[in-house]
């Protein structure tokens, strides 16, 4: 560092050379002045007193030199502490100010006061952040394992919130009135035989222990006639003022709508954030490098986390840049080979998926062959196994296929972010959610006799009343079984797969051991597991009202379990993907699950006749009918208005208006995009011309000086 000299107050002013230098000139421009603006009433930093113009620029240009000569008007004391001079120089200048009263500038004091107030206020402002659960855990996970893993846990936390909300709603609107008001309903008496068969869910007194266990796992026996399932809820409560069927229906709609809004909000805010923070125009390598280190970090732990986070950020950027470069460098032949390979791989993946779907369809036992087999009927374990066969097949497929598909997708030569999107959307979504669809399809076939209302079994009551006297409860039981099995799988996988792998890896040395023992958190698969679990709850929530509560407990358990296995078994990710994939894409997949779950629920509400022997909608033509019935009770004007909402004359204009709005928004967005790129070009040109002009001025200034 160029020391200006020994102490004692003599400094050689290293002023600018002949004429203004380029940096000094550039600093006079209005754009630089904006940067130095510090608020109303306070002169901007570096604002030269007229005769200090030389030294004012000198201290910007070169080193910590102090003007030793001729300051008739020394800078005000407010500027003294802001000069980039060593303490000696400032003290020297301070002394030269002599007996000038050091007026405490109001601005400075004011801002000091504001700072103290800010310090007092900050802990209060930090309270909402403190209420966020698991904040430090998430931060630790993000630092150690990358943003991808952290996004999984954030999604899990969000879903937990959703489930709690849903459970609260349904509990408040259905369970609470039931327990407070009405008499707890008794199961229908067995002896009575009605046109639509008889329904006897009464558990047969004392049951032996294995049967109790199987009943717990499959939702039969004692659980069948319990608030867990649809069949328990009565048509009317004591007092008659609280309409339970209406509340039941509305709670489903309201919680579905709430979920939709929350997911949309999360997705949109994630999109906004990542659009800005990852757009190349606004953030850049230079910002990342120079703003990277937080100088307030203390302690080896946070420092290490910060370093890792920076490394992940840089890695993602570099990988994308490299991929772009190699994509540009590919010749036509290479492109053809690449696309050929991709097509082949896709066909292979389609074949695998088809096989999986067929297996699941077979396992749902559409003809009832396995169930009615006498051997199976004898042994309760076999019966349980057959009952759980669809779940077993689905979980098996979900366990084996995703790694295979992931491997195959990795061969396709995309960047990691794109790979994650592809894996997520294309294949594993289909696999997970469509397997659910297959199960629902086979159930539908059973309930509605293959959609044929004239079939012999369904003609009397509209549904297959002999096998399924209370089909909603049966549907609820299936979803309940799927949920339980999902939980069991999540508990079993660490124990049976990850722990042995880790053990084996540590026992065998060398590369094989390292291959076995290195476990990395597969974010897309895990996220799909979450989406699948949540879709189950959305589908089954109407038929099994306490499912959201069970799911809350399940997700809570899952959080702690995953966290434990993460820190115990898994190594930090070798590659990570962009935050935008997580922030925007994962909620999008959730939305897909929500949309998918709406279909069976709405179909059940509108089309399939409700069971005549159980549930709050007994005796109605379909479940939806309770709403028009309730509307009949309202006044004429409201009734007419509400009915008009359902007619075409309302729907068609609404649709037209929405489409027009959508087209308008799209056009606006594209034109803004074009505007942004044009402006970017302008900025570049402007800065080039500015530098050119400044250089010319410097040249001319130098020439002028030489001439004199």
């Amino acid at each position, binding site marked *: 560092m160029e020391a200006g000299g020994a102490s004692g107050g003599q400094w050689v002013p290293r002023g600018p050379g002949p004429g203004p230098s380029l940096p000094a000139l550039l*600093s006079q421009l209005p754009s630089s002045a904006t940067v130095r603006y510090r608020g109303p009433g306070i002169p901007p930093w570096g604002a030269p007193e007229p005769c200090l113009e030389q030294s004012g620029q000198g201290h910007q240009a070169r080193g910590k030199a102090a003007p030793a000569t001729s300051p008739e008007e020394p800078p005000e004391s407010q500027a003294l502490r802001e000069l980039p001079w*060593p*303490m*000696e120089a*400032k*003290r020297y200048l301070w002394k030269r100010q002599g007996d000038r009263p050091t007026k405490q500038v109001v601005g400075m004091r004011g801002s000091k006061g504001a700072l103290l107030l800010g310090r007092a206020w900050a802990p209060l402002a930090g309270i909402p952040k403190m209420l966020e659960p698991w904040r430090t855990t998430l931060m630790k996970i993000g630092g150690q394992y990358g943003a991808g893993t952290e996004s999984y846990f954030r999604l899990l936390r969000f879903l937990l919130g959703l489930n709690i909300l849903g459970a609260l709603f349904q509990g408040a609107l259905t369970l609470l009135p039931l327990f407070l008001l009405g008499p707890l309903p008794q199961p229908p008496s067995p002896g009575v035989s009605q046109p639509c068969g008889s329904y006897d869910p009464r558990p047969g007194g004392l049951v032996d222990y294995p049967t109790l266990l199987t009943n717990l796992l499959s939702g039969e026996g004692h659980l069948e006639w319990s608030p867990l399932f649809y069949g328990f809820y009565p048509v009317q409560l004591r007092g008659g003022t609280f309409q339970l069927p209406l509340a039941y229906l509305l709670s489903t709609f309201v919680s579905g709508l709430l979920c939709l809004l929350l997911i949309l909000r999360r997705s949109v805010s994630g999109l906004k954030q990542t659009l*800005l923070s990852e757009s190349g125009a606004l953030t850049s390598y230079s*910002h990342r490098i120079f703003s990277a*280190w937080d100088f307030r970090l203390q302690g080896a732990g946070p420092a290490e986390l910060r370093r890792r986070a920076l490394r992940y950020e840089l890695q993602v950027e570099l990988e994308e840049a490299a991929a772009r470069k190699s994509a540009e460098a590919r010749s036509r032949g290479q492109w053809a080979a690449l696309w050929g390979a991709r097509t082949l791989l896709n066909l292979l993946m389609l074949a695998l998926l088809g096989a999986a779907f067929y297996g699941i369809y077979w396992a749902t036992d559409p003809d009832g062959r396995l169930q009615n087999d006498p051997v199976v009927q004898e042994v309760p374990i076999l019966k349980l196994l057959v009952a759980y066969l669809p779940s077993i097949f689905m979980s098996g497929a979900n366990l084996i296929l995703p790694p295979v598909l992931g491997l195959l997708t990795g061969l396709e030569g995309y960047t990691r972010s794109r790979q994650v999107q592809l894996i997520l959307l294309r294949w594993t979504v289909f696999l997970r959610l469509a397997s659910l669809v297959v199960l629902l399809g086979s159930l539908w076939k059973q309930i509605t006799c293959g959609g044929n209302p004239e079939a012999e079994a369904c003609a009397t009551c509209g549904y297959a009343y002999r096998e399924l006297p209370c089909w909603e409860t049966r549907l609820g039981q299936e979803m309940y079984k799927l949920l339980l099995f999902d939980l069991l799988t999540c508990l079993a996988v660490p124990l049976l797969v990850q722990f042995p792998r880790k053990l084996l890896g540590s026992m065998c040395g060398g590369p094989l051991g390292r291959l076995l023992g290195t476990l990395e958190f597969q974010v897309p698969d895990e996220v799909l597991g979450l989406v699948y679990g949540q879709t189950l709850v959305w589908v089954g929530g109407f038929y099994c009202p306490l499912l959201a509560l069970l799911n809350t407990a399940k997700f809570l358990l899952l959080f702690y379990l995953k966290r434990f296995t993460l820190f115990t078994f898994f190594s930090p990710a070798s590659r990570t993907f962009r935050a935008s994939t997580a922030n925007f894409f994962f909620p999008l997949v959730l939305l897909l699950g929500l949309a998918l779950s709406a279909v069976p629920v709405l179909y059940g509400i509108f089309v399939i006749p409700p069971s005549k022997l159980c549930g709050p909608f007994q005796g109605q033509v379909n479940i939806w009918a309770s709403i028009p019935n309730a509307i009949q009770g309202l006044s004429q004007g409201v009734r007419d208005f509400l009915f008009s909402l359902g007619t075409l004359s309302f729907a068609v204009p609404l649709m037209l208006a929405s489409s027009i709005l959508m087209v308008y928004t799209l056009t606006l967005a594209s034109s803004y995009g074009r505007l942004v790129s044009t402006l970017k070009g302008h900025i570049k040109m402007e800065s080039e011309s500015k530098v050119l002009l400044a250089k010319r001025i410097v040249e001319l200034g130098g020439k002028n000086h030489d001439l004199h």
Partner: protein
Amino acid sequence: MGNKQTVFTPEQLDAYQDCTFFTRKEILKLFYRFQDLAPQLVPFDYTGKPDVKLPYEVICGMPELKDNPFRERIAQVFSQDGDGNMTLDDFLDMFSVMSEMAPRDLKAYYAFKIYDFNNDDYICPLDLEKTVTKLTRGELTPEEVGLVCEKVINEADVDNDGKLSLDDFQNMILHAPDFLRLCASTMKNAVDTDKNSTVCPQRILQSISTFHIRI
């Protein structure tokens, strides 16, 4: 804030108060921190202006600086001779610049000096490489480091001389979008182990996002 202290003369305290962003109490607090670093070297009485320099290993051992990859550079920039050994004046200077009250352009100036490893008033590609290596602790390959440095120079170099002058640096760092600061600040608040040093957002906007230390 009575005048009971015997460390400084009133004139010295006034000078310090005007030359730094600290109040009397904070200056004394800083003095005691300085003293704690090397109790046998630093006298309790500074009225005679003793010339005491603490070696740079001691300064870099402070908890605020210990885990900072740029601690040597910080000590070098703020020391008088550039070798990292700091007097009390340099110490106060350093914390004054790094405090929350210092304006962003002052911080930008010193940040530039810290990142300028060879002291030639330009951040040249070599300086950048050293910065990136220090930041990532060698976890990037040399090609990646080179690529990053090239991109940084391309983005920030306005006058096209292949290196960053103070102006380029200031323009780039002071025009960083505000939301970046707020994003960075939430993370900083989360990692902050010292419970007292949350900073209100206004002040964050006025200082370079990450360039301050609180004592």
